[in-house]
């Protein structure tokens, strides 16, 4: 029986609550956005006691459905001042789900003068709020190692690093990986790490001792569906097995990770390069997924058993697609960072003109250790470059700037953790790539205009995953669009955003989409797992639309209008080579996405 844990950080108390009838089918993003939109005053300061920090494992987390163990966190965002949900893999989704926790709501905050820091220990039918001042101020690599030493049950951990503890807007929520070697499983976006920091909580530790695999209402149907789904995923060239029958690389995600996109977007001319000045990067191949694959093979050959690099790595127990990786130092074969994925390589590499793989991985490691979102931080460093304070392409200078963040007295250190908008404005930059205060990710909206509409309109600020482009045919929407630069994007953007909201709530990783896109049996199996788990038929679009409505409603009450659904001016005025196009979707077309919401 799922329940909700409500923790009050003002008086350090907690209580268990039953799920309300209207919450029975809500989990993941649907749950966090439901709580934030119904319980948080949209006008509250996001870093004070009236905001709430909500955690919810996806609906199928903890079950044997493949790649379904994601966990969502939500709050009013200090970066966008609107509603926010971010999700990640790691252990926490599975651990919480197996002890029956559908949601964890952190509310209130210790008095402003308090210097105390806390850790939350959540177990089966138990919760402890433990004062742990010694955990504050640590880098996350040290922090997670200490926690596992102290709690040998191999718990899930999510928390905030130095940046979150200092209430900085680029702070993400870290999560430990399955091996506890890296805190790189980030629900990174929207500054939610700072919300956790405002509650004086460094870590939420979840222990599933005594727990059980959540049971589906229609168990036989669920079992059959999940098995069919595994087969579909395994057979697909994107999500499938590592090697084919001849021993050649097969599944793209397992072999190259999401960073297979580096070369593809480069060839498409939509890879934002050097702060969105160009659409192609001459150094893309050096930092691509293929380059990481080769580095791993090379260090394995050189260091044998001592080599810690890998690809085909699962970010949470039960992920069969395994797009994650562990990048080794070439000279020792030891782990440098895990994972190194596309958006990060773009933000900290391509976007900064840096093509030295080791430098990009080091920037990623520093972000993980400090507790900041890589996309936001990459865009922030790009503002330093745009302002002429660091040269584009200077990896060591970017690393030195980020290391400043360890010094609490460094102004530069504070700035690099404050997000691109704050930093860009402070430095007099007029090309700041943000929507609703949040940085754009790794697809330039000028040649890829549909994603531009999603950046502009989704309630979370510029976010590719919110309007993840599940193929239109899944939703039964067909048409005669023959040019990707076609301008009529409203219906599709809305449909994709709804479907994404459904997936973000199910616990499934968005990447199941590649398979369900190409395989009708896979799509049916996926929806069957959800329906049989709940014992009722869920309409994908209806479910997702309800989530979006709650989110848009919150933002409207927070004062957002259509004017906030706009890309920065320079995307309309500066042409992006090689296609030499601007973003010229009309405001009316953009506003059509949520007309009548």
């Amino acid at each position, binding site marked *: 029986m799922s329940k909700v844990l409500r923790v009050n950080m003002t008086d350090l108390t907690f209580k268990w609550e039953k799920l309300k009838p209207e919450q029975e089918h809500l989990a993941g993003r649907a749950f966090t956005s439901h709580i934030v939109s119904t319980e948080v005053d949209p006008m509250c300061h996001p870093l004070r006691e009236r905001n709430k920090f909500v955690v919810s494992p996806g609906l199928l987390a903890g079950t044997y459905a493949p790649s379904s163990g994601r966990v969502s966190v939500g709050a009013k965002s200090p970066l966008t001042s609107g509603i926010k949900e971010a999700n990640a893999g790691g252990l926490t989704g599975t651990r919480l789900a197996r002890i029956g926790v559908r949601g964890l709501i952190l509310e209130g905050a210790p008095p402003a003068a308090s210097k105390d820091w806390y850790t939350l220990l959540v177990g089966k039918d138990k919760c402890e709020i433990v004062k742990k001042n010694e955990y504050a101020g640590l880098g996350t690599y040290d922090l997670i190692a200490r926690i596992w030493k102290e709690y040998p049950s191999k718990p899930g951990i999510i928390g905030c690093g130095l940046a979150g503890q200092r209430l900085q807007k680029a702070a993400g929520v870290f999560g430990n990986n399955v091996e506890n070697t890296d805190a790189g499983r980030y629900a990174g976006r929207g500054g939610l790490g700072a919300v956790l920091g405002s509650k004086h909580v460094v870590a939420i530790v979840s222990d599933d001792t005594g727990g059980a695999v959540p049971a589906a209402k229609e168990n036989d149907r669920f079992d059959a569906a999940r098995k069919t789904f595994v087969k579909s995923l395994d057979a697909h*060239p*994107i999500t499938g097995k590592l090697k084919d029958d001849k021993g*050649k*690389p*097969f*599944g*793209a995600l397992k*072999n*190259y990770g*999401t960073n297979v*996109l580096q*070369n*593809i*977007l480069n*060839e*498409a*001319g*939509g890879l934002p390069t050097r702060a969105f000045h160009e*659409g192609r990067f001459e150094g893309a*191949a*050096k930092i*691509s997924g*293929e*380059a990481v*694959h*080769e*580095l791993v093979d090379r260090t394995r050959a050189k260091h044998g058993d001592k080599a810690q690099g890998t690809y085909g790595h699962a970010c949470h127990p039960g992920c069969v697609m395994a797009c994650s990786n562990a990048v080794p130092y070439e000279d020792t074969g030891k782990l440098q960072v895990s994972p190194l994925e*596309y958006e990060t390589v773009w933000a900290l590499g391509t976007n900064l003109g840096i093509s030295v793989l080791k430098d990009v991985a080091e920037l990623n490691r520093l972000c993980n250790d400090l507790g900041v979102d890589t996309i936001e931080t990459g865009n922030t460093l790009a503002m330093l470059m745009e302002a002429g304070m660091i040269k584009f392409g200077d990896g060591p200078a970017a690393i030195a700037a980020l290391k400043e963040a360890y010094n609490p007295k460094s102004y530069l250190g504070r700035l690099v953790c404050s997000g691109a908008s704050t930093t860009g404005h402070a430095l007099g930059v007029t090309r700041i790539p943000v929507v609703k205060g949040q940085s754009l*990710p*790794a*697809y330039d909206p000028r040649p*890829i205009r*549909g*994603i531009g509409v999603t950046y502009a309109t989704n309630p979370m600020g510029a976010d*590719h*995953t919110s309007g*993840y*482009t599940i*193929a*239109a*045919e899944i939703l039964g*929407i*067909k*048409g*005669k*669009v*023959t*040019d*990707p630069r076609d301008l009529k*994007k409203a219906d*599709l*953007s809305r449909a*994709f955003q709804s479907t994404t909201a459904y997936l973000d709530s199910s616990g499934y990783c968005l*990447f199941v*989409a*590649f398979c369900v*896109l*190409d395989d009708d049996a896979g799509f049916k199996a996926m929806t069957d797992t959800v329906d049989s788990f709940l014992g009722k038929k869920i309409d994908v679009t209806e479910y997702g639309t309800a989530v979006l409505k709650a989110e848009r409603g919150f933002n409207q009450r927070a004062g957002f209008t259509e004017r906030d659904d706009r890309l920065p001016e320079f995307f309309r005025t500066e042409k992006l080579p*090689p*296609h030499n196009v601007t973003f010229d979707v009309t405001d009316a077309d953009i506003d059509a996405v949520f007309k009548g919401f």
Partner: protein
Amino acid sequence: MAHGARAVDDPYEFGMTHLAQHMHEATAQGPPRIEIHLYGELRSLVPGSRPDEDTVMWVAHVMNETFEQLTSRMGLTPEQLGDCFIDGTLAKKSDIVPSGARVALFPYNMVLLCGGQHLKGHGYTRGELDVDYY
């Protein structure tokens, strides 16, 4: 457009090895050519290529040749190909490859992931679709 007999005839005689060797002559001035960027297992068409560097091959341009004809001339079948591009635009089988084009060939297991699915519908990874949608 200047097309010598060699530019028209030779390409169909080239086996893979010859094509690869031909690459080394390609930067010299000569008949119009197409610049082909290869990825994944297709890099093996150029001996000595590395996955962390650009792998580029130049082949002679053939007037009015379609993308399907070009790849077939290279000995590649549609099943071997993922998302491919001509000058940054997703290539369809019937597209004419212009002289001097930059063509990018990705193998079947390299396709656009999130943010790019709308560029699909090109007839390779999912043949029956007639739409380019998100």
